[in-house]
């Protein structure tokens, strides 16, 4: 019997899980995919918003500002890269300039500090590649950037290091029982028992609530498409650039990522399911809008395009509360943007205010919030690397030639919480296969390492779980 089961391995579920391990509780995370960070928390903009955008008094505004303030230490403790690069909301008309003043006032009311309106000259000085049609901007120095899936992997990993369990490939298909004695099951016969359920299933939140008997909200999907430019474009822009919101529709953003790429997007299109297909029109829209924001966008350096689906709810604000109809069910639903930014603050609130009203919380004195960096090998000196290779020769063997990733680092990703069990999970953690050849050379070798380390036959290794097998058996 678990004290708390968290459903959904995104940043919200992961952050809550980690927060729970600060206390003496038996907790686990359930995720339907083969790895964590496979939903919204994988494909998003990675912006740590300043907090001027959300309506005054909303949960979005409250958690955004709190989360932004917490993020720097949060990321540092988990050894995830975070950068306070600042945000700029750019105006292209007199009307936009008026909106900027409103945004500034709203931001200040939300508690955002250091907001400033810049004229065109100071804007061009900060961002020389910005369009010459720009008239000015709202500057928010507290805006930042973080890698969303690395942060998610890190929070779940740290929670597991502190005693939490993780069940992947567990798609919740039925919930029975009541507060103090729930049973959560999957179609293929997996079961867990728990006193409390925390629903963090993203686009699946409505389904989970419905399964438990709560019909109080609905969730829809809104797809956003992106284009990612090569790291050779680093410094094309330094701040995160937004269009000024207007009646004419929503713009996209142009921003650096913490890893030095440039990200363009997202579009916004309502979809029925968690549809993450890229489309010709979507990518065209991104290109057109990016070209309005900046001069000479280096589209020739495109390395990939991708899409994510925002899970928004009919209440148009985050839902973070215990269900009114089902006791012991805590819903964290409709966590669309700025959900990534808000995650540390939401997690703290959920555990300290909501869980605590149902269960006595006693501190887990052995909790250690620090997580070793996953890319520790690169940061070692040559002497330290050579010492490590002496002890563990697998660190002397390059597997991914493009990104120069060693067998040691791949084994580390498979053995470290949360364990990578397929090709894409290894790629997300180590960058093996992310380089110019896109895994053409190293995939067979990575597959063999996974098979060996997990003790499974090579045919059982997948790209990203379930039906995404690599091979159809042996040759004749």
């Amino acid at each position, binding site marked *: 019997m678990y004290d708390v089961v968290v459903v959904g391995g995104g940043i919200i579920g992961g952050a809550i899980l980690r927060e729970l391990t600060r206390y003496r509780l038996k907790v686990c995370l359930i995720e339907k995919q083969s790895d964590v960070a496979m939903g919204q928390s994988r494909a998003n903009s990675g912006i740590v918003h300043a907090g001027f955008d959300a309506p005054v008094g909303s949960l979005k505004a409250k958690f955004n500002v709190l989360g932004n303030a917490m993020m720097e230490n949060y990321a540092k403790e988990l050894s995830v890269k975070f950068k306070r690069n600042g945000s700029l909301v750019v105006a292209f008309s007199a009307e936009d300039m008026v909106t900027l003043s409103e945004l500034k006032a709203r931001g200040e009311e939300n508690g955002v500090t250091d907001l400033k309106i810049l004229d065109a000259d100071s804007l061009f000085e900060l961002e020389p590649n910005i369009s010459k049609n720009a008239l000015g901007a709202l500057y928010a120095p507290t805006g930042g950037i973080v890698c969303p899936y690395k942060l998610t992997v890190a929070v779940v990993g740290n929670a597991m290091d502190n005693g939490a369990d993780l069940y992947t490939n567990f798609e919740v298909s039925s919930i029975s029982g009541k507060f103090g004695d729930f049973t959560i099951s999957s179609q293929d016969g997996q079961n867990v028992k728990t006193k409390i359920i925390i629903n963090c299933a993203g686009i699946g939140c409505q389904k989970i609530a419905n399964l438990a008997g709560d019909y109080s909200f609905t969730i829809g999907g809104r797809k956003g498409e992106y284009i990612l430019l090569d790291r050779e474009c680093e410094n094309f822009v330094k701040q995160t650039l937004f269009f000024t919101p207007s009646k004419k529709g929503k713009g996209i953003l142009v921003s650096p990522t913490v890893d030095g790429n440039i990200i363009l997007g997202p579009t916004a299109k309502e979809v029925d399911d968690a549809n993450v297909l890229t489309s010709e029109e979507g*990518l065209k829209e991104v290109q057109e809008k990016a070209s309005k924001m900046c001069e000479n966008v280096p589209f020739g350096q495109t390395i990939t395009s991708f899409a994510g689906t925002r899970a928004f709810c009919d209440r148009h604000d985050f839902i973070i509360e215990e269900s009114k109809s089902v006791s012991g069910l805590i819903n964290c639903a409709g966590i669309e943007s700025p959900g990534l930014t808000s995650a540390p603050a939401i997690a703290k609130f959920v555990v300290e205010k909501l869980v605590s009203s149902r269960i006595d919380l006693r501190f887990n004195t052995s909790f250690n919030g620090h997580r070793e960096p996953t890319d520790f090998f690169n940061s070692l000196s040559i002497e330290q690397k050579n010492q490590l290779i*002496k002890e563990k020769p697998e660190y002397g063997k*390059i597997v991914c030639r493009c990104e120069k990733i060693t067998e040691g680092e791949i084994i580390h990703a498979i053995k470290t919480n949360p364990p990578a069990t397929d090709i894409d999970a290894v790629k997300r953690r180590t960058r093996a296969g992310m380089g110019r050849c896109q895994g053409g050379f190293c995939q067979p070798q990575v597959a063999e390492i996974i098979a060996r380390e997990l003790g499974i036959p*090579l045919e059982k290794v997948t790209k990203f779980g379930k039906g995404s097998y690599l*091979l*159809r058996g042996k*040759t004749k």
Partner: protein
Amino acid sequence: MKNYDVVIIGGGPAGLAAGIKAYDYGAKVLIIEREEITGGILNQCIHNGFGLTRFKESLSGPEYASRFIEQVAKRDIDVLTETTVLSIDKNNKTVTAINSKEGIFEVNAKAIVLAMGCRERSKGALNIAGSRPSGLYSAGTAQKYVNIKGYLPGKEVVILGSGDIGLIMARRMTLEGATVKAVCEIMPYSSGLKRNIVQCLDDFGIPLYLSHTIVDIEGKDRVTAVTICQVDQNKKPIKGTEKRFECDTVLFSVGLIPENELAKDAGIELNRLTKGATVYQNRETTSSGIFACGNVLHVHDLVDFVSEEAEIAGISAAQYALNGAKEHDSVDCIAGDNVSYVLPQKIDKNLSGAVKLFFRVRKSLNNCKVKVCVGDKTVIETKKRVVRPGEMEHVLIAEDKIKSLDGNVTVSIEGCEL
């Protein structure tokens, strides 16, 4: 620190042949190879057809490689396998490498030969709309799974790109019991060898769709179908010509690119057309004492020419190491009408011997005239029956002509379109 006259990066056919010649010239040689064994990409090419020019017999890839591996073994050439070169310092000629036994270490050389081979262009660069399921492989990855690991990637296959590896894999997968439903090629011609089209597609009744490309990929977990479509002259899909094939595997054979990250990081001048280094006829790059040969220099279709080129580079590197640098006095070689590139890009008039100019054509031509001009003066004119983009051509400039070159050399070709 270890010291050598010549350090060769890559132990494929190019690196092996260069090593043998450099040693025979009198140099102390080290070959560094990342894999467990030398032989390079030939180890996974178990089909026949290698060595027809050089040995006048049809060998498999491993057989061809073993002839050179044996020659290396007979000599006192040092070979470090399972060792990856991480960087080169082109001025001091130090090579930094990593392996499990010695960790990260440096080797000093008097001359360096680049022989890192090539890699396949990735499917990611194509930007095809639709989903990203499993079952999408570059043809070479599939070749490795089938020929080295003994596993079959899939049973119903569509191949995009008609490069040689794609053609060879069409036959290989068919022999392993898979059904290859289509090979589609965006260009109006195949970039593969004629003999491979006949022996790998025609003989098995596999259809080749020229001027076609993949416009959609379906499948959530594993690929389930693709749609191909005819394209116009500008490679834009023509609506209404779509054909859908159910399949569990798509192989991409969309071109090879010289693996030049090391050279690029070291600041060695690369050529825009070949994506390899710019070289003189002795295969010395414009960085003194650094040589290049094989697929890292330009993509070859026949390994026989790789060996020939590597021997030139091997001797030149040994000469450089033992006799020191020589002044260059050079003219440039330029790709003229219908020619996509010429190699070497520079002819050094101080070097002795005739020069074989290798080139590729832009389109298939019949009854052709190859012209080598210096300024507006034609110095050589020869005939060729048929030329194809997929097959490398060459023309020989005799030694006596080299000395008197007084301007840049342009190679062009004219003929009737096929």
